[in-house]
């Protein structure tokens, strides 16, 4: 009797204990948001909406507005996504539909390796190998051949929006690829066999039965990649040139939201400077929260569907 009573008491305790620890996730999320809001309040009340529409960033006069950083983040991430998406879907299709099983597995683990390389190492390679190459080869070529376009004007600095786009593309491709691969692997074989049985070529089978089935999952993967690109800090900071200027040219240096935080936050002199950086962080937090929320919704809805459909 005594034993079982103890057991039940232990069970209740254990349940509460583990529940408490599990809830820490929600607590962390709330605390993070609260902390960011609290610290950015001075900047929010002082600058209002002008904070996201203006472009002065002057620590001496204590005038802060963040448009150049927003612009840099949005442009670099969207261009990187546009380049990365077709490559990622192509690679995921190669792994799941095209390659022999062994080759597919090897390719998949190489992609995982690529995803595991820390951001700072991409940055190191970017600043010491990629940007000198861009400066000496790619950018002069672009200026000579496409210099009549506003996107390729100016001097070849190496560090530039273009460098940030390239490094971001390299970094998010493995993420989008590996999630897309998971999504594609969950497409029921019967769907594919049906297409093949009707005489479809392999490409037609992919186009008509694989891709439509995986559509929302792939969209989720791409949105997740976008979130990663917007929040990417170290590698971008090292190659983008850190100049708060809005320029159409991809060859000119730019700046992003995480980069300005990384560069200035440890050395703020005034409360308002710190608060302005916190507000940039808050915007970043809000944007990535929304993006991740959307992406997970899409991916989760797909997993549910698989569970219902495949069984």
């Amino acid at each position, binding site marked *: 009797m005594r034993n079982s009573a103890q057991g039940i008491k232990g069970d209740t305790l254990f349940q509460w204990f583990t529940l408490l620890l599990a809830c820490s996730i929600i607590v962390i999320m709330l605390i993070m948001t609260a*902390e960011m809001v609290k610290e950015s309040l001075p900047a929010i009340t002082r600058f209002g909406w002008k904070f996201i529409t203006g472009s002065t960033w002057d620590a001496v006069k204590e005038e802060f507005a963040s448009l150049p950083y927003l612009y840099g983040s949005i442009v670099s991430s969207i261009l990187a996504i546009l380049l990365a998406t077709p490559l990622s879907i192509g690679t995921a299709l190669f792994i799941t539909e095209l390659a022999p099983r062994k080759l597919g597995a090897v390719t998949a683990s190489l992609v995982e390796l690529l995803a595991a390389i820390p951001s700072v*190492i991409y940055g190191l390679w970017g600043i*010491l190998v990629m940007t000198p190459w861009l400066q000496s080869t790619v950018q002069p070529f672009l200026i000579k051949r496409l210099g009549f376009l506003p996107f390729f004007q100016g001097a070849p600095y190496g560090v530039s929006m273009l460098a940030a786009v390239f490094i971001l593309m390299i970094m998010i491709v493995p993420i989008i690829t590996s999630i897309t691969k998971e999504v594609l692997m969950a497409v029921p074989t019967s769907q594919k066999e049906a297409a093949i049985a009707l005489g479809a070529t392999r490409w037609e089978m992919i186009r008509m039965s694989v891709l439509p089935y995986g559509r929302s999952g792939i969209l989720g993967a791409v949105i997740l990649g976008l979130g990663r690109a917007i929040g990417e800090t170290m590698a971008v900071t090292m190659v983008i040139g850190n100049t708060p200027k809005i320029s159409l040219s991809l060859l000119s240096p730019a700046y992003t939201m995480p980069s300005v935080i990384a560069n200035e*936050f440890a050395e703020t002199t005034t409360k308002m400077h710190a608060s302005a950086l916190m507000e940039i962080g808050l915007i970043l937090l809000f944007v990535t929260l929304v993006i991740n929320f959307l992406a*997970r919704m899409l991916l989760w809805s797909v997993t549910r569907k698989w569970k219902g459909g495949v069984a």
Partner: protein
Amino acid sequence: MNLRSIALRRVANGAATLLMGAATLLVLLPLIIIFYHIIKMGISSINPDFFTQIPRPTGEEGGGMANGIAGSAIMIGMASLVGLPIGVFGAVYLTEYGTGKLSTTIRFCADVLSGIPSIITGMVAYGMLVVPMKGFSALAGSFALSLIMIPIVLRTTEEQLKMVPTTLREASLALGVPLWRTSIKVTLRSALTGVITGTLLAIARVAGETAPLLFTALGNQFWSKKLTEPMAALPLQIFNFAISPYEDWHRLAWAGALVLVVLMFGLSLAARWLGRSKHS
């Protein structure tokens, strides 16, 4: 059947196949190039000094990253002490009791949380620890790292625990063992290798984190004596040396990158090997 259209379809098929192969090559190319450079530039500075000395001022030959390696180890260790138990036991809750709305919310939040830029975690740790303690410290760095670890450990551990067959649990419960002991002695025990795999992967992920340490641990050119002082970390040193204009610091940065990559791949290989030996 129209012959021309069949030919066209074949051509389309061939073109698509080619494009998919080309995309794969393009994706893997940077991996090869980056590895080539890390090994080529890093290997020459790897020597006993690298692991025993602190960085020398530029201009002097030699020097190492011993303080960075030790600092990383200390901060990851402290982060694990906090992050692992919370993640693992949180996962136990989700597998044993987690059927309601609350658990779904927790899972969802964990997924969303792991997508939040790590630099924001650094800012939060700055506001919560650096400001009240009036200074950058190793403690704040470990705190930031543990925040990043928790959602990763929680989700990977839960995946592992879910794979433990219910029959094992039922057998233990039928013998009159209370649920909490069953959870620890049977469920966690049989998923142990899986849990360790998840842990290793989480550590590998955290080991390369730089952004959250920028304004928590800050970095240190020398050895730190206390946990309340700024502390060096390997990724921070790689960053600072990479953006410096000095050739000899660049060499150290490459060597640091090589060590970091070897360490991370060692961890994930170990994790994989553990995961595989369990299934065979």
